[in-house]
């Protein structure tokens, strides 16, 4: 049986699938599964590497330019950093090349949110965006240790540092805008919208025949324009749909994902592994309290050794 992302959401909403794996507290730990999850579909086949998304991202999030490359005249980061939330990279092998966009995947079971001791990283209950709250953060950087995509970045050169990561420009949602990278993408390679619709679109693209023409939505899957283009061959995999429990950002490509720098990951999240262990030991603190009782009894019986 093929479980689609939509079924998955329905399953969780009905309290089925995840409850079996780890129960309601698990969903709370990750901020709950969002009511209206928003996400992104990046299609490497449509990307022309213009980096308009990177400029738009910096503007929308008021981020400084970064001079990591050879020249310092313009913004030219070589990777994600505390100054760069979104980056387009290129893979080249002979005449073949492919682009890849990296930013926060907004996992359905985010390890960073599960890890954070002070709930500074949480999933927004409505949009599912993994948000950062600097007023809670203690700077322990455990989120960085556990993120399978190495997304959260730390301001190493600041005595009053913060964790920095993509939040899908959710500060612009109220103003009728959305993730700037998608809003300013000229080709539709970065496409914004409800996760469910995006996954349908991704599945549709996988059924298209290379060489034929098809309509591709641009910017926003619901409100954006559509452009007719020739279909390039896709690998039959939606990266991010099932990796570690799935995420709200998905990637399509015609080049092997590992060559594009994306880690090969299993489907079961490590969050569920950990919560299996911690729930067994610490649920309602029954075990520690019982153990303390036993220890108090033993110490009294043996007498305090000086």
């Amino acid at each position, binding site marked *: 049986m093929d479980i689609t992302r939509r079924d998955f959401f329905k399953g969780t909403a009905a309290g089925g699938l995840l409850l079996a794996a780890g129960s309601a507290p698990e969903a709370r730990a990750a901020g709950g599964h969002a009511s209206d999850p928003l996400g992104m579909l990046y299609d490497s086949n449509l990307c022309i590497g213009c980096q308009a998304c990177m400029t738009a991202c910096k503007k929308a999030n008021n981020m400084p330019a970064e001079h990591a490359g050879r020249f310092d005249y313009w913004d030219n980061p070589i990777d994600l950093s505390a100054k760069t939330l979104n980056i387009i990279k290129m893979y080249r092998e002979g005449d073949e090349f492919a682009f890849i966009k990296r930013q926060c995947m907004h996992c359905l079971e985010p390890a960073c949110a599960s890890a954070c*001791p*002070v709930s500074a990283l949480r999933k927004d209950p409505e949009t599912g965006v993994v948000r950062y709250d600097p007023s809670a953060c203690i*700077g*322990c950087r455990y989120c960085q240790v556990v993120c399978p995509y190495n997304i959260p970045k730390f301001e190493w050169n600041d*005595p009053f540092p913060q964790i920095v990561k993509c939040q899908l420009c959710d500060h612009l949602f109220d103003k009728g805008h959305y993730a700037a990278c998608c809003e300013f993408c000229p080709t539709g390679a970065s496409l914004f919208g409800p996760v469910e619709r995006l996954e349908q679109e991704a599945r549709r693209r996988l059924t298209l025949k290379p060489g034929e023409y098809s309509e591709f939505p641009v910017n926003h899957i619901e409100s954006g324009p559509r452009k007719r283009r020739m279909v390039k061959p896709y690998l039959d995999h939606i990266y991010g749909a099932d990796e570690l429990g799935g995420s709200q950002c998905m990637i399509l490509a015609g080049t092997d994902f590992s060559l594009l720098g994306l880690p090969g990951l299993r489907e079961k999240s*490590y969050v569920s592994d950990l919560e299996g*262990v911690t729930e067994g030991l*610490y649920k309602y603190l029954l075990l*520690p309290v019982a153990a303390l009782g036993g220890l108090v009894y033993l110490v009294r019986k*043996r007498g305090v050794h000086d």
Partner: protein
Amino acid sequence: MSQARSLGGKVFTIPFILGILVLLLAFLFTVKRFVYGLGPVSGMNDGFPWGLWITYDVNVGTALACGGYSMAILIYIFNKGEYSPLLKPAVLTSLLGYTLAAVSIFIDIGRYWNMFNIFMPWHANVHSAMLEVAACIAAYVLVLWIEFAPVFLKRLNIPDLESKLNKMLFFFIALGMLLPTMHQSSLGSLMILAGSKLSPLYWSKLLPFYFLVAAILLGYAIVIFETSVSGVAFNNTHEVRLLRKLSGVVPWIVGIFLLFRFQDIVARDAFHLMFQGDLTGNMFLLENLLLVAALVWLIPAANRRSAKKVLWGAVLVLFGAGLYRFNAYITGFEPGNGWHYFPTVAELLITFGIIAIEILGYLWIVKRFPVLHLPERSGSTA
């Protein structure tokens, strides 16, 4: 009964003054860290966000500070009261180790002014192993100071407070066995979430179990080490005799640890990874060679009769089990993307400073406060 009493003698010896110099250097770099941020003093980066301070000072350091915990288990749970002369010095090393680990954490965390959010229920993420580690370590530092307070109170001559405290002490001793069980295992649970970034030689759902066993093991090893060294340095042969018996416990724990680890690695098809010749594989081999050597060394009863050989066995365990915890945090950790980490001189010096405070603190306290059971005034209890 032998009596614990202060050792006396000069505190400001030449090694002590050298230690203070190391401390001053470490202090300068600590100032730099707070003025310029973590980047300019450390080799840590976005791929390796935890460096020497978390890996060694906290993760290995608190395990090395489990002497008090391990001895309490032996004395109270297994009812081996004869080991009680070893308890107080062990609690002292625990007190210093844990307190300094807390200082390390304060230096390491980026947003230290928000530190108290750990204790604010509205911020708490009860599913975070990190919350458990942080809250438990903080609580345990407090418990250790209370457990050790009678020693200070005796010296300061506040008998009223001392007798009141003694009446409640049983509760803190019990708490002092519960808390390390919780956070020492949770230090292992932390790396479960690292998932794909931790080598299959180290990643396991049993991480909390391994970390707990390693902590108990390091606890016994450090008690043997510290007692042997102070026995030679302060000419105190009384406590050394107890160590021979204590060393009989160690091979059992090493054996169980190795058995579980290797079964687990074979079950997860990770066996071949140790022979890959990379840093992770080589460090794994080194760690396990040390542990196997410790096992082989300490099994024959003849070896356990010699104080010197017992000390060597303890040293093997210290490096073997210490390396296990070190490797599980850093050499087995591979974030990919070409990231690498090596500690800077400043980072190393701050760690040396932390170790210096531990040694200086130990020397000062045993010379001025009644900690060690010294032979001159009494007979043997062993």
